């Protein structure tokens, strides 16, 4: 499926071809540990077992930032 992906630390939005099903699969695919990121789908914070759909707008936000 194709999703729109915004990874906060990259600061840009991109189309992403995703082969998995859940947010957990996506984080694993991208190499992002669950405890260090929050995922927002279509403006709502979701849990890692949330099932993604074609065309979803997915934001990945770093828990760790600052100094």
């Amino acid at each position, binding site marked *: 499926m194709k999703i729109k992906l915004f990874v906060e630390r990259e600061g840009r939005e991109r189309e992403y071809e995703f082969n998995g099903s859940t947010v957990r699969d996506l984080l694993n695919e991208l190499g992002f*540990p*669950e405890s260090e990121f929050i995922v927002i789908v279509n403006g709502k*914070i979701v*849990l890692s077992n949330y099932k993604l759909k074609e065309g979803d707008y997915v934001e990945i936000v770093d*828990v*760790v*930032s*600052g*100094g």
Partner: protein
Amino acid sequence: MKCSFCDRDAVYCKNDICYCEKHFIEYFEKKAFDTIKKYTLIDEGERIGVAVSGGKDSISLLYFLNKHSENLGIEVVGIHIDEGIKGYRDILTEYLRNFAKKNNIYLRIFRFKDVFGYTLDEALKILKETSIKPCTICGIWRRWIMNKAARELELDKIATAHNMNDEVQTLILNVLEGNFEDFLRSGPYVGIKNFDGFVPRIKPFYFHTEKETMIYALINGIRAPFAECPYIVGQIRHIVRRKLYKIENELPGFHETLLYNYLDLLPKIREKFRKKIVINRCKICGEPTSRDICRACELKLKIDNIVSTKK
């Protein structure tokens, strides 16, 4: 997954209990109130300064204390220190200014350049051939300004947004670097009330994880820009922070267990090891210090000397 308390979708789960946005806010704020009560962090009628960097943690704390200021019977003031890191602090300062204006919160900004005569970027350029690390100078000058600002603004206490992850990192670093006094001085309440020259520090988010604070920020529309201090990469805190997250991923609850065990042990080790500290006044600035010249002035002197010998 649904919230354990209603039919809405959950945004966070912990120990088999799930929370929707509304119930997460209740859970988060109750934990902060419990910390405030248990450790007597705040008394009615106090003027509390919130040390706010412009990141999501400290803005969340400013938001939380301001939201409940009437309920707690306190006055809230924001204190921001701009150390002058180009491309990092300026972004956060801008966001914070807008946030404070929108929420009608008094914000006072102090700059390294105005107080010490150098931005951090400038100081580090001058000190590049010494072994002084960016976090050392930043931390020392920051604490000095914070203490002086607290007295200038007649604050009773300074609230910082240190969370469970920060605190565990600091504990490990203090052991690693042999800072035994600092190791014994930690906890949600640091300092002694009415002790001449020192303003106590309080940490209402001490028992919240970094992730919980971020969720609280996001639910409340606090989207501080993602920014990482350029000087932290490669520093020991950065390495320890990353390693601790790795341990947490394999052993969920690691931070929490470590922190609670530390707090259980603290009174016993404090009793046994704490030395009586003699407080002097710095011969240059008059601030309280255990030395003749405080570390903030010592650093400024060092930089001034390098600059004058190069002229």
